[in-house]
């Protein structure tokens, strides 16, 4: 099977995800949904809520449970439920805007709150939309744009609060453009820089009592201390390398992701192998990784 690139009309084999000629992302065809992963029953046996009419098990891979975003061969992310949690409370958004500005947001819902999944999604969406808007309208003054995005995300999560439940989430957001990467965060979701050799360099500092405790000291949510400001950092790009944003579901198992990131054939392959590694190590938490190769 062959199909045409929508950009340059060059033919590519269907299994290719990018046009060999111009690098345009080829629309992934709507592939048939998978059979029931538990008993192998045909896709038509699976009801709209995901339950298999034969074995009763719910198909694990619901849209939110595992989703992959591929912007280009050098820019991709993956968020996964892991093995132990019954839903994915991480969220992820990323894109390249205004031609050369790469925007990434990763959030990890605090699972002691009931609507942790909604919190991470709302924060990600609000921060991401705010950053894209700032950049597209040309007010891209980095730190200001990031702080505005954090305020939007905070408002979005606070709005979810109800009697007895204050949904909360961590957040890490990055804008890479030109020679700089600007990052803002609250909590223990991280950003790393991975150069051509040596260990990965952690660009963020966890807002946590200690790396082992997992008790975060800053977060987004109605019950967050009012005067808490997001931390920010600016990284100057001095050579080729990779920017990695991830939730603690990854770094718990892989404190130094450098080797695995460099081994990936492209960004999609690299994030897939990172998530696979975390799952093979126990998959105790939700896992999210977003990778940009510069």
């Amino acid at each position, binding site marked *: 099977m062959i199909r045409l690139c929508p950009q340059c009309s060059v033919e590519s084999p269907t299994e290719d995800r990018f046009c060999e000629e111009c690098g345009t992302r080829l629309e992934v065809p709507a592939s048939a949904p998978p059979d029931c992963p538990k008993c192998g029953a045909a896709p038509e046996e699976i009801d709209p809520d995901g339950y298999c009419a034969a*074995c*009763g*098990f*719910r198909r*694990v891979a619901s849209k939110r449970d595992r989703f992959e975003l591929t912007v280009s061969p050098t820019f991709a992310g993956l968020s996964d439920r*892991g*093995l132990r949690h*019954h839903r994915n409370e991480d969220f992820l958004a990323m894109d390249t805007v205004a031609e050369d500005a790469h925007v990434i947001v990763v959030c990890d819902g605090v699972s002691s709150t009931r609507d942790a999944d909604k919190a991470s999604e709302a924060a990600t969406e609000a921060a991401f939309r705010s950053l894209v808007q700032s950049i597209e309208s040309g007010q891209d003054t980095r730190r200001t744009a990031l702080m505005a995005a954090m305020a939007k995300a905070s408002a979005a999560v606070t709005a979810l609060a109800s009697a007895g439940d204050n949904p909360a989430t961590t957040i890490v957001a990055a804008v890479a453009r030109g020679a700089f990467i600007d990052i803002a965060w609250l909590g223990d979701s991280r950003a790393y820089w991975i150069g051509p050799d040596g260990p990965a360099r952690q660009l963020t500092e966890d807002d946590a009592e200690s790396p082992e405790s997992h008790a975060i000291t800053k977060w987004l949510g109605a019950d967050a201390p009012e005067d808490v400001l997001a931390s920010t950092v600016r990284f100057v790009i001095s050579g080729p390398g990779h920017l990695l944003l991830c939730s603690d579901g990854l770094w718990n198992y892989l404190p130094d992701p450098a080797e695995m990131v460099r081994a990936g054939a492209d960004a999609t392959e690299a994030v897939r192998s990172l998530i696979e590694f975390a799952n093979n190590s126990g998959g105790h938490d939700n896992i999210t990784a977003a990778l940009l190769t510069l």
Partner: protein
Amino acid sequence: MTQFKAEVFQNAYIPQGADEVNAIMTVTVEGGLGLGSSGEKVIGIICDTSGSMEGGKIHAAKDAIVRLVWLLPADASFFIVAGGETGDLIFPIAKATPESKQRAIAAIKTIKAIGGTCISTWLAKALEQFAVAPNAIRQCILLTDGENEKQDEPLLGAMLNACEGQFQCECRGVGSDWKVEELRKISGRLLGSTDIITRPDLIEADFREILQRALNKEVSDVALRLWTPLGSRVRFCKQVSPDIVDLTGRARQPKPQIQDYPTGAWGKAESRDYHFCIEVKSGEVGDEMLAGRASLVVTTGGVENKVAEARILAVWTDDESKSTRIDRRVAHYTGQAELAQSIQEGLEARGRGDDDVATALLGKAVRLAHESRNEATTKLLRKVVEVENEEQGTVRLKRLVAKEDAMALETRSTKTSRIQRPDTAPGSNQE
């Protein structure tokens, strides 16, 4: 349209390795008129007229039936069977017009108490009469005072097979010479209840109540349909309120993975609870399973109509704070089933003179009835045992117990209390 509402109460979270899912389903009839029935009602009356009824009992029974006939609304149909060694159809099925009521009453007057007790022949006559109106709501009352003849036993078993699903039957034993087990076998198969009428003069009030409930029925032939996943097994399916009826062995299987349990006819505002216990294939932590889908199916003229549906889920978790919680309704009805069992086994032990076992079991029953605020059962227990401490269940067996009191406790041991809701008064027994 009769509206059914089905709600499931459960804790879906179970630990790794667990393969049992428990859920209570509450089914309530809400609103309106007759889906699934022609609106037609047939009331069958079967009265034991064997020799043992001679005297006060047959007089009271005849009076009660006459009153019952007067109470019938003109749009209902009825028939009367006098039961002895053979069933005698003394009044064949007819609409309850004033004229036919007069004829029926004349026929009742001719009843004489004579001969033996062969219940299979009585039911055979009733079955023929109900066959005339297959779409009607078909309710029968059977009154007896004695044991069925031994030689009728195999015939009765076969007759119950024939009658199952054809009509419902309320069984009443008057006095204390009848066998609870025997009537319960009939009422169980024919989706009715068994109860004791301790004195003949109470027959009329009891009949009135049965008739009221029968006339209140709007929908007949309702089945509880349970879908379960491949590789699973229904450990039990029980009605648990207003009384305990084990339906596990009663299922029809129209297709693989589907069981239909009979629930009979339903009346206005009626509410019942069911307990499902399903054994499933164990999942991994994080897995979620549809362990059952329960619905109500009304069949009208051969057409099935699904009227309400609820889901039973299983979610495997390693979070013990989630998996160790037991849903309070599941806990309550598990306790009520244990209560009924303690009473039945306790009375059995008492019957064979095993006082130690009887004291222990009836004491446990007193404690369980107290804990679940089943005051009706507590009252019945107090007629059989001297209670020293309700909370701890310490009791002494009473030496002198009226046979009727022991039988009342036995027949009503399956009546359950409903779980206490903040908005209901404590201690109300069912409905």
